[in-house]
């Protein structure tokens, strides 16, 4: 009797293990079974991903998590936000701790190939900049020779910084920090002359200062930083779902679909592309394992790309970023959704 119980439990464990193994590589099934989307976000970068006093997350990257949750689970609130640092983010993704990484991460060759990540697109075209105090009297990054510079470890900015100073024959003293919050503290205490990270991050950081007017962001942009959400290599269907959720948000702005008029357009729009996008005709959702209204829910969650941008980091917010490169292609920007067909 005892023996059979023992063998029985061994078999059960083995079955459970093999079951878990089978589910691996099918993130959609896993997320649906769990009922919650695990989304890796920044530990706290105002405008992109930061919790408020009540612990509710908001921001540009958070909005994308919500859109995916709405598309997949039908509820934008069913997201578990996992704060990740520059050091822990990719490990969190590849170990399966998060299903999706929406943490202003730069799309690079090595990350896409060697780290076995799939960047599903670009949601913010950025570049690395420098922030200094006004009273330092510096107006160009070329004047930073010999400066002490705060830099987040484990980021592409760390490598760009080394390259930029080498290319310009300048010296600098790096101060390695672990998170944006620590960087802010060191910079404010004057432990470094300049703080460098993506220009959007600098704007967001400056917005959280008590005296933003005393700090300037230098005009030099020393690198290309295409920021985008990433998923694990190997699960193409999950990659498709997240990629096309992003395109749905961008396309919605292009076709003038907003969270306000979406219900009306779903019924009355004559534009075939909008009809396909919102699931009125054709069943695009089925092809990626979702229902017909997936994109509609995603757009409704926080609005289209333009609405999200304006609400979280746009010119009306304290962060005050202009659309610039991130305008629609029709407006001279780089945001270009592939056709929904």
């Amino acid at each position, binding site marked *: 009797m005892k023996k059979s119980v023992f063998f029985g439990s061994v078999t059960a464990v083995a079955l459970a293990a093999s079951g878990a193994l089978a589910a691996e590589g099918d993130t959609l099934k896993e997320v649906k079974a769990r009922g919650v989307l695990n989304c890796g976000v920044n530990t706290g970068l105002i405008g992109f991903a930061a919790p408020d006093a009540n612990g509710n997350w908001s921001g540009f990257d958070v909005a994308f998590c919500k859109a995916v949750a709405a598309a997949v689970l039908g509820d934008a609130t069913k997201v578990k936000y996992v704060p990740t640092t*520059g*050091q822990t983010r*990719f*490990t969190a993704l*590849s170990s399966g701790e998060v299903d999706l990484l929406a943490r202003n991460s730069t799309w690079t060759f*090595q*990350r896409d190939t*060697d*780290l*076995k990540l799939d960047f599903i697109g670009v949601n913010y075209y950025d570049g690395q900049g420098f922030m200094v105090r006004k009273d330092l009297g510096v107006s160009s990054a070329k004047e*930073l*020779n*010999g*400066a*002490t510079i705060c830099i987040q*470890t*484990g980021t592409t900015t*760390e*490598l760009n*910084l*080394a*390259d930029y100073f*080498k290319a310009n024959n300048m010296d*600098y*003293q*790096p*101060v*390695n*920090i*672990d998170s944006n919050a620590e960087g802010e*503290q*060191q910079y404010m*205490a*004057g*432990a*470094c*002359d300049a703080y460098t990270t993506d220009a959007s991050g600098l704007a967001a950081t400056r917005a959280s200062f008590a005296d933003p007017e005393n700090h300037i962001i230098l005009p030099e942009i020393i690198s290309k930083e295409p920021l985008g959400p990433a998923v694990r*290599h*190997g699960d193409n269907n999950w990659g498709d779902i997240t990629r096309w959720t992003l395109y749905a948000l961008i396309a919605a702005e292009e076709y003038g679909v907003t969270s306000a008029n979406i219900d009306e357009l779903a019924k009355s729009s004559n534009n075939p592309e909008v009809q396909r996008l919102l699931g009125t005709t054709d069943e695009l959702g089925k092809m990626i394992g979702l229902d017909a209204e997936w994109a509609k829910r995603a757009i409704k969650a926080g609005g289209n790309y333009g609405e999200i941008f304006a609400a979280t980091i746009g010119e009306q917010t304290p962060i005050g970023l202009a659309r610039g490169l991130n305008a629609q292609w029709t407006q001279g920007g780089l945001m270009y959704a592939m056709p929904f067909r």
Partner: protein
Amino acid sequence: MVAYTGADNPPFRLSMLIYDRRYRSLTLQAIVFILVMLAASWLIDNTLRNLSAMGKTLSFDFLFRRAGYDIPQQLIPYNSDDTHLRATVIGLLNTLLVSVLGCIAATVLGVIVGVLRLSSNWLIARLMTVYVEVFRNIPLLLWILVCLAIFTEVMPPPNAYRGENPAASMILFDTIAPTNRYTAIPSIGMTNPPGTISLGREGISWAFVAFVVAIAAAFVGRRLLRSRAQRIQDRTGKRPTTWWISLAMFALPVLFLTWYFGLHLIPPVLRGFNFADGINLDNALVVLWLALTLYTGAFIAEIVRAGILAVSKGQTEAAFALGLRPRRTMSLVVLPQALRVIVPPLISQYLNLTKNSSLAIAVGYMDLRGTLGGTTLNQTGREMEAMVLMMGIYLALSLIISAGMNIFNARVKLKER
């Protein structure tokens, strides 16, 4: 004569492996050994298989690729064009630096506090108790962060030293400038440099070699002098005074070399954003050193106190009865016996300090954890390899420290003949 063919060599049967006490323990050991090895091989196999399922194969090639990042503090030359391997070595040297500095300072502090805690002065003894209890009962990470906060918030930025009427002024005759980034101290310059031995990219000045040789020679000389004094004492009963010869052997060559090479201090000067010319001791190093010293010092103080208390009071009284003065009693009677008790737990404190130095990441000090286990790991995505390598290095480091201290322990422990 009848040969006794009793129980001495019964034929071996398999069942004896279980029922015979002589073999049973061997059987059990063999079974446990096999089980442990099976578990280990399962773990390794599982890891490798899961890694390959993720498309990652175990490979240490990344160590030979370009690192691409800069490191704030380097003991040997390094720039972003060097390999990850060299970055790892830089990190290892930084780990060793803070560990060695920490072990020395913690031992000095620990011995002083440990002795003072036994002082008959009520106030001093209580103050030391407070220090010990406060520092060893609060996590080290908190002390590191507190020290960092003090250094960044309280010290002036380098800018404060600028201008006609600076907000901060340098201390010790304008030679040391504490700032919230580093402490700028004077460097040593030579007016008559003798050239360097070139070792690849590193160079060692002949002057440094000369000083090392001079000091080593002085140690040998002192040894000879002492054994001569001992011989004279054995023969005549009178020990000749040697301290001034000893002192001269150390001081004269050093003074001569200093004069010959024209050694002088170059005070740090504020130039551009930062101090130049001097040596900038990174605050990360100073903070980490300070916190590790204060924390481990509290533990060592307790070990020293225990060691001294372990020496029976009779020993002290006997030494006094023989007419030894208190200082000599301490150094000749109490301390040699106390060392036997002190050294073994001291080894673990040194090991702890070395391992605790990996908390350096909290202050951005680029030690082994910061380079190999931090930036390199992150930029290459080789978590498994970097972690395995780092664990191996820390293990080797600990075993080396442990072996060294065990040799020392063997020398001071009670010799039984």
